[in-house]
């Protein structure tokens, strides 16, 4: 055990992308900042790694949809090496009969007129949500004017939509995607693909109430992305984290990897620093955690520093993930029936109809995976050859739905799900199986272990109306503050939730700076 080392203004637990954004912003504001990351690499779930010799994939997030263009600019990420490998990636829906559907908007869009009108309106709603995302939710019941102003502002934003839009948003806000899409469109593939986006990364099926909200949440991210649409950096999503690390360092922050925090130190009811697994203690005036709220509050801080009712609330936060990741190392470029090379570089989805997605979801409710899974597939090495040896390729797919707990246990079920996935892919890419040289399947418990996210959830905590804005991470949360003075949260478990957006980290830095003014 070593004694007290250095004193920092701020210690950030976890070099996930949010932790890095937060650290960079605090360092830029002149705070002596230290980031402590448990793993050997930065990025958390925004990472690109070798999963088989010579093959690299973005093994958590694999497509960016929510990084605000303003954040790139603020941190000068281009100057820190961030390049895009591919932008405005098209989405192609693979259909059971071997045909495909182009489900993107545009002049040639399916049900073009209806689509355009619908998209315009939905974009206004997403725009309103994006405004909420970019700001720290107000605290209720404080005499503070900034909180009242923030609340007014949120209400005002809603009013500004105008009477008809506001009424419509209130109508659909808590609705399910299935019904909304059904009343708007005819085409099953279109509805299937859009419904898939609505529920991607959540514990919802298209028919679950609140799935319109989760869709708007995703669209809000896309809207703020500066027209890049779905995109991927050169070198994979991990390159973004590397750029963020570089920006944080350039601003003066210190980043230490391989430094797992064992606990948060509290003295006289104030966070005073952290203790690492090896006993090293680091003092700081402020501790910010980018780890998920359950890990931070129940494991690193501990129930004894918190009120019993609050602990019960935290314990009941829904945080088990339902998305898995599949990574295949292929010895040649895959041929997918009906998909031309340009579309092959984009995003492929297997979600041919809303009922297909809903059925896949149904299984998950009972601790099963579906033999007809809904998939989001990318072939990143087509645009970025650095990811695989010459001529070889990488397939990365997000799998909906793989429950955290399966009847039978994952040891037994993992290989069986892998087989089912290969079968599903083979149907659209005959011969793919034979080209697989290595394969990796990360189910939620693996994600929990790999990334240190309790429950392995995309958003750390379920993204749902009852765990959003004023209610995130807990009802009555006071912005990024925790009940323990000096301890803050900055990860995806905070408002506005997950996805690689950096918003939680940026908002947290803002909040902390405002508190210490």
């Amino acid at each position: 055990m070593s004694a007290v080392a250095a004193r920092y203004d701020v210690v950030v637990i976890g070099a996930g992308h949010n932790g890095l954004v937060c650290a960079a912003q605090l360092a830029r504001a002149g705070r002596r900042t230290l980031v402590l990351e448990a793993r050997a690499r930065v990025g958390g779930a925004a990472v690109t790694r070798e999963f088989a010799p010579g093959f690299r994939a973005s093994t958590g997030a694999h497509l960016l949809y929510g990084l605000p263009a303003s954040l790139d600019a603020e941190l000068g990420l281009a100057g820190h090496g961030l390049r895009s490998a591919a932008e405005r990636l098209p989405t192609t829906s693979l259909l059971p009969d071997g045909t495909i559907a182009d489900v993107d908007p545009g002049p040639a869009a399916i049900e073009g007129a209806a689509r355009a009108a619908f998209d315009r309106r939905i974009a206004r709603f997403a725009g309103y949500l994006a405004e909420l995302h970019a700001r720290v939710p107000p605290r209720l019941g404080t005499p503070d004017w900034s909180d009242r102003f923030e609340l007014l502002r949120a209400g005002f934003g809603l009013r500004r939509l105008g009477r008809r839009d506001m009424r419509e948003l209130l109508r659909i806000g808590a609705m399910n995607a299935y019904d909304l899409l059904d009343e708007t469109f005819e085409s099953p593939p279109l509805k299937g693909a859009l419904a898939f986006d609505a529920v991607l990364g959540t514990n919802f099926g298209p028919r679950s109430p609140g799935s319109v909200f989760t869709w708007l949440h995703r669209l809000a991210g896309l809207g703020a992305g500066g027209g890049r649409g779905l995109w991927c950096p050169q070198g994979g999503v991990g390159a973004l984290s590397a750029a963020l690390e570089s920006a944080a360092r350039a601003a003066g922050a210190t980043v230490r990897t391989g430094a797992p925090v064992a606990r948060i130190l509290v003295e006289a009811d104030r966070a005073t620093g952290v203790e690492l697994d090896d006993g090293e203690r680091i003092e700081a005036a402020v501790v910010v955690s980018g780890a998920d709220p359950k890990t931070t509050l129940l494991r690193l801080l501990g129930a004894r520093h918190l009120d019993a009712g609050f602990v019960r609330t935290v314990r009941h936060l829904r945080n088990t993930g339902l998305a898995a990741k599949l990574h295949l190392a292929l010895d040649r470029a895959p041929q997918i029936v009906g998909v031309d090379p340009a579309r092959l570089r984009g995003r492929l989805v297997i979600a041919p109809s809303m009922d297909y997605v809903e059925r896949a979801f149904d299984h998950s409710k009972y601790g099963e995976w579906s033999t007809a899974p809904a998939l989001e597939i990318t072939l990143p090495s087509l645009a970025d050859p650095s990811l695989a040896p010459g001529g070889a390729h990488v397939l990365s797919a997000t799998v909906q739905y793989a429950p955290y707990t399966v009847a039978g246990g994952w040891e037994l079920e993992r290989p069986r799900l892998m087989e089912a996935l290969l079968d599903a892919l083979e149907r659209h890419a005959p011969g793919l199986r034979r080209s697989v040289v290595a394969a990796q399947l990360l189910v939620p418990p693996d994600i929990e272990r790999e990334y240190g996210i309790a429950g392995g959830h995309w958003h750390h905590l379920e993204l749902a109306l009852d765990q959003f804005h004023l209610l995130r991470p807990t009802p009555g949360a006071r912005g990024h503050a925790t009940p323990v003075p000096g301890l803050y949260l900055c990860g995806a478990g905070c408002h506005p939730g997950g996805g690689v957006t950096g918003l939680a980290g940026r908002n947290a830095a803002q909040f902390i700076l405002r508190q210490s003014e």
Partner: protein
Amino acid sequence: MIETASSGTAAPHYRQPLLGTPFHARSRALAQVDQYVAWSGYSTVDVYTTVEQEYFAIRNAATVYDITPMTKYRIAGRDAVAYLDRLVTRDVARLRTGRLGYCLWCNDDGELVDDGTLFRLGESEFRLCAAMRQIDWLEASAIGFDVSIEEVTERIAALSLQGPVSCAILKAAGLGEVATLPPFAIGRYDLDGIELTISRSGFTGDLGYEIWMDPSAAEAVWDRLFDVGRSRGLRAIGSRALDLARIEAGYLSPWIDFVPAEHAIRVGRARSPLELGLERFVDFDKGHFTGRRALLEERRRGPRSCLVGLDVEGNKPARAALLYADARCRREIGAVTSAVWSPTCKRNIAIARVDAPFSALGTSLWAEIYLNRELVWERRITRARVVERTFFAPERRRATPPADF
């Protein structure tokens, strides 16, 4: 016929909603006026003979009160001390083995969930006694602690032996060593092969003991106490007489003097220890406990109301009286929660909630008392004064060894 919990033949709970305690056969024989009340699933005696007769035995001789229905939890495990320190407002680490203490526990908002007594039976073994069941709150509080919580109410029979002659009776019964037991201490004794735990504690504010035993020993212990106690004035008492004594001692009763926080439905009805005048049982310096931050904030702001003692003019108990700042009853400032004419103090006393500005000792208030005189209601506006809430606290309650009466 009422089944006893330990008889083993108890009818299914839904057919027999109220159980008898292991003392039921004995108390039944003495319950002359057949007045029973339900207490936590047990049938217990409200009045044996007359309230007055029983009350005077508490203050002048000795009494036995069956406290078996008191909810008892065994709390043990590696983190028992840490768990309890986070649960209750007093410093549990400083409670020595073999001691007990009065304690309070609050919700996150610093509102009183309940009060009770905590017995430290071993390094990491405790018993918590409370008026109500609350396993839900205790278990919610256990998240993150290595501790086991078990309700043991039915496994332990208990009698409260109270009054100036209580020690003398124990000595006569062959439990002479009890005399050395100081207040709030716990001892283990052997009564002809019966294992007893005796604590110097009670709810009367006077000298007294609580005797804890296996239910199978209940009748033998009862008989022994009455064999030696009858000639010393020992009586069995019911809840009504005890209520008189506890008001004199200034002790609070849940549902009467405060609404337990987890049961309060209306906003603002629950009370904090600061509002209940129990701040001395709140240790802000011991580390974190549930409600601490809210209580610190409340202390900074000042509580909204206070539970005070009142000395009311005249001799008509101010039961449920509304309180006013002025004799013309224009400004309502509180209400009486408990009130009696105290035969021992010869004072008309009450416990009352008053708005904070009217809580200082000596403040003069007006109570609106309604009297029903042969079905004719009379309204009296009577002067009352804020006084210490402990109306009766004789020196003998503390003396060790207690004087022989």
